[in-house]
């Protein structure tokens, strides 16, 4: 299993409304992230677009269907297709979520929550090892937003995630918006969460907007809020160099708006670097 070098860049998710921008010229990003499943196809426009974008930018593959927490095991056909895409694109890395999406018969197409138990830990570590073996590369695992915390939990999410990283050698994709949302929903401290993770294993950071409420929802349909920017600053001071990006999946604004948000992320990172150098 190879090591993943840090990549300290700033990027955006590649979304359909922005295809003309990315195909037409230089967009001021250091990398783009694509949803792996959208390009795990046999041919046609999606792969043609991705091949063109790849000629100009580094690409990170971000999946939603690996289902590493599934008690019914990994889908080897899925992994074979994912490996073919990774071999074609030569991405910075391949990531997915600390979650499960399917049972033996059905797929929810949602990032469902795991109980943080010893049994679930064994399951996800086994699945991650198989997945990394088939993909022949370490994965990045992202902390999810969740709306349900199981009474059966035997450890915190950050303890669980840390143990997965330690046992499997995977890296972390730190979603600071997800920490913010889940901290609100489950009443834990976002600072405790950050403090409990092996942050030296973080290679990428996600930023996004969410819908506030009694239960906050990770909607990716609005700008990043002030509390999440504060968390980013805190995280960057501890992670070392990492790739930072903004996710927007709904109510997608013009590219210029997202680039302006990304400029905020660059500014925060520059401030952290200055403080570290002082």
């Amino acid at each position, binding site marked *: 299993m190879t090591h993943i070098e840090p990549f300290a860049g700033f990027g955006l998710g590649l979304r359909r409304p922005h295809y003309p921008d990315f195909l037409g010229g230089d967009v001021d990003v250091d990398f783009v992230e694509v949803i792996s499943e959208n390009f795990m196809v046999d041919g*046609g*426009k999606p792969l043609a677009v991705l091949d063109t974008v790849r000629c100009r930018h580094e690409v990170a593959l971000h999946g939603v269907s690996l289902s590493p927490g599934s008690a019914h095991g990994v889908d080897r056909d899925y992994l074979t297709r994912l490996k073919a895409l990774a071999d074609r694109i030569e991405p910075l890395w391949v990531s997915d979520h600390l979650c499960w999406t*399917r049972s033996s*018969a059905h797929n929810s197409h*949602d990032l469902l929550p795991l109980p943080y138990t010893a049994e679930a830990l064994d399951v996800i570590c086994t699945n991650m090892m198989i997945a990394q073996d088939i993909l022949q590369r370490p994965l990045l695992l992202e902390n999810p937003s969740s709306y*349900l915390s199981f009474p059966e939990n035997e450890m915190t999410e950050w303890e669980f995630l840390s143990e997965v990283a330690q046992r499997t050698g995977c890296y972390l994709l730190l979603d600071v918006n997800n920490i913010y949302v889940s901290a609100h929903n489950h009443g834990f401290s976002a600072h405790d969460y950050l403090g409990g993770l092996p942050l030296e294993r973080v290679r990428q950071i996600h930023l996004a907007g969410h819908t506030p409420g009694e239960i906050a929802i990770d909607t990716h349909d609005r700008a990043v809020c002030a509390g999440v920017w504060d968390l980013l600053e805190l995280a960057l001071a501890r992670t070392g160099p990492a790739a930072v990006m903004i996710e927007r999946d709904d109510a997608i604004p013009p590219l210029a708006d997202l680039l302006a948000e990304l400029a905020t992320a660059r500014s925060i990172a520059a401030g952290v670097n200055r403080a570290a150098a002082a």
Partner: protein
Amino acid sequence: MTLAEQQSGFIQGLLANDALLPEHWQARERAGYEIYRNAYRARLIDALRETYPRTARLAGEEAFQAAAAHHLITHPPASWTLDDAGLHFDRTLEALFPRDLDVAELGWIEWAMQVAFTAADADTLDRPALTAATAAFGAQAWQDLRLAFVPGLAVRLVEHDCLRLWPLLGGDESIDAARELAPLSEAQGCIVWRGGLCSTFTMVSAPEARALAAMQTGANYADACELLVHLLGEEPALQLAGTMLARWLDQGWITRVSA
């Protein structure tokens, strides 16, 4: 309870409103679970609406939502890709709208176009390439001629003029004209494929569509001609046999010939 049992129960609860949730769950867990349940339905219905935009307009929003919800109950998604959620939705539409078969026919076209959109890339054969490939063919080789078609090419018979129907459902204007479109006097063939990077479709006569479907599933040129003679009689069949091959080449449907 094992993790596998817990996860199976969790998914069953997403699929059915009346599924029992764990007794020890309090209001907070139940409220959180409802978010997953609502998101499951909304996401999948949105996925169907994205795959079937014109079908949704023709059926009407309320009827389409009900059909989509019914389809998700009878065909819960099993594939890793959300794109497959609409698999066989045209059959669901045919069962739910038996007196409005244009809805199911349009659904079939939209599904076939989605499949063709990401089908494998392939080089197509043009007329000079066919001439070169068959230059040494004798009469028997022509009879044994078999064709390979572009991945994603789909054929079926339809009872409505889908070429007229399609643009009537593309904009924001009234769809009254689409709803009032009378069925064809006799069925025609509808062919879906991808030309370059875009999916498209056209209509051909029913005999030509049947000949194409036969050759797509392995029939040779002699079998296809025999089918045409059976359907049309000898003289019209011979005329069509020549022109259809030229059309298939010009449309970019053929990738390879063999004998």
